[in-house]
C-alpha cells in the first residue's frame, strides 16, 4: 500500500520554539487516521504542513507521493476541512456549491446536490447564518464532492454539540465507505475518534509518541497488575509506558510484541482511550525543556 502522507524528520519552528519536531511517519492509504493530542501539541501544525499552508523548517513531507500543493492536480487529490469550517459568510449555500464546481475539475455535482438535500440545507441561505453543525456539513460536502484521494480534517467536531457531532461522523463514514478515500482527522478528544479511526497517531508536546493501526496498538499494549515490583526488574522486551504503585500493588501499561507469560501478572486489555492517556502522561512526566507558557501556535 502506498503512503498517503510520508514525513522524515519533519519539524516546524516559530522563532525559538519548535511546534513540531522530529516527526517521522508513514501513514498508509485506505485508513481513517486519528491524530490525537492535547491542544498545542502540534496537530494543526502537522496538518498545515500537509496541506501546504506552512513550509517545513526541517525535514521533508510528501503527500500522495508529491510535495503539498505542488500544482492543480495535487490540489485536486487532497480535500481539506480547516478548523471551524471556514465558509464565505455572505455567500449562500448554492453559491458555495457553484464555487466547488467552478474550481474543481473533479467535482461531483450530483453527490453534492444529494448531500445538501439530505442535510435539508436551504440553497438560498447565507452560510453565515447556518448552525455550527450545518456549516461543518457544508464544508465537508465541499471537501468530499471534489472526489479527493485524501481528506484532511482539522478538529472538525470540536465545537459541535453531541448530535451534530454524531451526524457529522456518520456522514464522514458514509463518504469513506462510498469513495475509498483516506482520511486524517485531528481531535483533542480520543472519544470522538474511537469508533471512526482504525489508525492512530498520538502527538504530545510537538512529538509523535506512538503511531500505528488501532488493532496492532491494542494487541501489543497490555495492562499488567500484580504485587508491588520495581519496573527495572522486569524481563526485557517489555516497554513500560506508564506505571503506578501502591504499597502492595503495581500496575503497569506495557508495550510488547510477545505474550506475557509470567504468571505473577494479571494481564488485561487496554482500551484506546486509556492507551492514549498513558502516552500523554508519559510525555508530561519529564520537566519540559520548552517553556510551556507559550501562546498558542500561530494558526
Amino acid at each position: 500500500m502506498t503512503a498517503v502522507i510520508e514525513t522524515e524528520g519533519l519539524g516546524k519552528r516559530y522563532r525559538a520554539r519548535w511546534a513540531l519536531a522530529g516527526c517521522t511517519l508513514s501513514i498508509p492509504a485506505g485508513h481513517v487516521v486519528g491524530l490525537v493530542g492535547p491542544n498545542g501539541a502540534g496537530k494543526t501544525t502537522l496538518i498545515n504542513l500537509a496541506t501546504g499552508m506552512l513550509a517545513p523548517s526541517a525535514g521533508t513531507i510528501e503527500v500522495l507521493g508529491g510535495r503539498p500543493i505542488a500544482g492543480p492536480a495535487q490540489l485536486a487529490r487532497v480535500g481539506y476541512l480547516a478548523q471551524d469550517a471556514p465558509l464565505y459568510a455572505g455567500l449562500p449555500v448554492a453559491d458555495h456549491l457553484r464555487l466547488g464546481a467552478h474550481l474543481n475539475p473533479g467535482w461531483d455535482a450530483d453527490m453534492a446536490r444529494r448531500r445538501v438535500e439530505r442535510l435539508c440545507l436551504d440553497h438560498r441561505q447565507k452560510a453565515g447564518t447556518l448552525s455550527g453543525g450545518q456549516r461543518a456539513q457544508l464544508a465537508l460536502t465541499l471537501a468530499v464532492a471534489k472526489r479527493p484521494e485524501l481528506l484532511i480534517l482539522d478538529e472538525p467536531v470540536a465545537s459541535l454539540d453531541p448530535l451534530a457531532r454524531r451526524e457529522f461522523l456518520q456522514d464522514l463514514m458514509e463518504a469513506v465507505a462510498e469513495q475509498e478515500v483516506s482520511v486524517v482527522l485531528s481531535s483533542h478528544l480520543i472519544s470522538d475518534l474511537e469508533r471512526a479511526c482504525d489508525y492512530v497517531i498520538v502527538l504530545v508536546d510537538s512529538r509523535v509518541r506512538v503511531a500505528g493501526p488501532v488493532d496492532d496498538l491494542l494487541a501489543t499494549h497490555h495492562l499488567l497488575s500484580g504485587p508491588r515490583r520495581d519496573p527495572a526488574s522486569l524481563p526485557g522486551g517489555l516497554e513500560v509506558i506508564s506505571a503506578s504503585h501502591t504499597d502492595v500493588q503495581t500496575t503497569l501499561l506495557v508495550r510488547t510484541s510477545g505474550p506475557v507469560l509470567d504468571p505473577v501478572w494479571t494481564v488485561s486489555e487496554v482500551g484506546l482511550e486509556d492507551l492514549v492517556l498513558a502516552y500523554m502522561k508519559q510525555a508530561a512526566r519529564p520537566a519540559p525543556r520548552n517553556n510551556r507558557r507559550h501562546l498558542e501556535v500561530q494558526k
Partner: protein
Amino acid sequence: MIEFHLDGRSGVAPYLQLIHQVRQALRLGLLHKGDQLPKVKDVAAGLAINPNTVLKAYRELEYEGLAAARPGVGTFVTGTLDGGSLAAHGPLRRELQRWLTRARRAGLDDESIEALFASTFRSAREEDIA
C-alpha cells in the same frame, strides 16, 4: 434486514459486537439463509464507525462459513448455526439451573454470581488464547 447497534462501553471490540449480533439474529430466527446483511456503507453511516470494521466483521463471518460476499451486490447469509448446538442447549440449560440453585444455597447473591461467572468466563477465554 437486521439493524446493528453498538455498546460503546462494553469493552468488546465493535467488530466482535457485530459478529455477535449476526449470530444472535441467526439463532433467534431473525436471519435466514439467503437473507442479505446490511450494506457496509449503511452500517458505517448508521453507527458512525469505520467501514473497515464492518468489513472485518463480515470477513470473519465469511471465514466461519456463515456469510458470503457477492461483489457489487452485498453480503448474504449462507450458513446457519446448526441445530446441533440448539439441541445441546436443553441439557446445558438444566445443568446451569442446578448450578444456580447450588450457588444460591451457598449464600451468593446476584452480583456475586455474575462476578464469579464473568471472571471464570474470562480466564477460560484467556487460557484458550494463550
